[in-house]
């Protein structure tokens, strides 16, 4: 079964209808386990209980970049292969990614208040994530500004690929600049610096959030396909009435 088989929206709808309940169930189970583990994790010797914000903040931040990556792949699908579902995927991912980015910013600033003494600091990591958030909003504005979805899809694809330059900047901003935000501690050369008691709940939460994204994404794609069908049915009806 190759990627082109999903090009048929009806087949896609049938397949996702079967996958979606399983995905939802595993998301709920993993989220429950992750939340329980994060609550049971010990307090940090310096940060106290506030360290638990990490279990929400870090998965959100990862997902904010991951979703843009997914949208970039979908944009390649739109521009290179003209895959009919690629622009549906790109369109429905944008609000979800914007939500993850917003949550990463909010939880980060709530964490920053007790730790750094400020809600917001103009450092490289924070600024580049804020730019990512603005680009998500710009992309959503672009989708809303044009009635013809395929025309909007091609424009949004170009913008998404240009915006993908921001991803490595966000990832490496903490290494390139001397910032308030701590450097990478989970995915780094020479192994994680995080203690096992924190690392395992964090990884469970990260997987749970990724599954949550795929659940939301598939559901949003189904909605978008149905929305387009309704739109074309309405237009057919209108043209019949006119005739």
């Amino acid at each position, binding site marked *: 079964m190759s990627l082109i088989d999903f090009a048929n929206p009806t087949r896609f709808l049938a397949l996702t209808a079967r996958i979606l309940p399983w995905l939802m169930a595993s998301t709920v189970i993993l989220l429950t386990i992750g939340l329980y583990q994060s609550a049971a994790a010990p307090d940090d010797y310096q940060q106290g209980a506030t360290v638990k914000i990490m279990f929400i903040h870090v998965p959100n931040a990862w997902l904010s970049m991951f979703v843009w990556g997914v949208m970039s792949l979908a944009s390649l699908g739109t521009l290179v292969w003209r895959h009919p579902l690629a622009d549906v995927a790109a369109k429905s991912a944008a609000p979800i990614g914007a939500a993850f980015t917003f949550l990463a910013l909010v939880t980060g600033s709530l964490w920053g208040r007790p730790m750094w003494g400020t809600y917001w600091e103009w450092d490289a990591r924070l*600024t580049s994530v804020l730019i990512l958030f603005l680009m998500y*909003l*710009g992309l959503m*504005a*672009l989708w809303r500004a044009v009635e013809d979805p395929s025309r909007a899809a091609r*424009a949004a694809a*170009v913008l998404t690929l240009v915006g993908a330059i921001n991803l490595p900047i966000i990832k490496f901003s903490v290494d390139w600049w001397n910032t308030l935000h701590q450097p990478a501690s989970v995915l780094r050369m020479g192994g994680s610096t995080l203690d096992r008691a924190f690392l395992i709940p964090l990884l469970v939460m990260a997987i749970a959030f990724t599954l949550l994204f795929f659940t939301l994404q598939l559901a949003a794609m189904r909605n978008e396909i149905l929305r387009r069908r309704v739109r074309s049915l309405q237009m057919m009806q209108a043209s019949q009435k006119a005739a």
Partner: protein
Amino acid sequence: MLAAKAVLRMTALSALIQRDIKIALRVGGGALIGVLFFLSVVVLMPFAVGPDLKLLARLGPAILWLGALLASLLTLDRLFTADHDDGSLDLIVMSRNSLELVCAAKAVAHWIAAGLPLIVAAPVLGLLLNLDVRSTAVVALTLLAGTPALTFTGMIGAALAVTLHRGGLLLAVLVLPLSIPVLIFGVAASEAAITGPQSFGAPFAILCALSLVSFVIGPVAAAASLRQGLD
């Protein structure tokens, strides 16, 4: 034979640049409106922050950079819309030159017509903001290094806007996030040279790098969106 072709191509591109500059500077071109807007933004600032000369001198580089950014944003939809309206954009897209090079040429012409006047005007406006000669020179230098990046990244937004028949606000929303890094390093370089203990070289080098990188990415992205969008 190959050399002759290359020469022909270069003549075509330089003809395009000359044409664009001429159109922009003549009646109806509107490139110099950007300078007027730049002046207005800078004149507005003392009303907003109060006529305290010391404060104005401290904020001066930031005000000049912000004014230049907004002014270059304002003139951006001139880049493709006029050509799109009279149909010459379709001819340009169909011509035998590679569209990427054509986009680069158009952006260079736009920068000469609309970006350079801003840099020339910056020292005069620096006087209004109580900047001394050295600070003004530094700001003009950073503008010279940074405004090409604004034009080349802005060109992506202009190309998207013209294929969607939507200009104005949408263009600003799309382009502004991309221009934030230019603003950060432009202001950082000028502040470092005027007051700061930090070195001027590092942010200035990054500013130049931003201009060079956007010179590569901007034309390619703009050409892709024109090719996909104009049908």
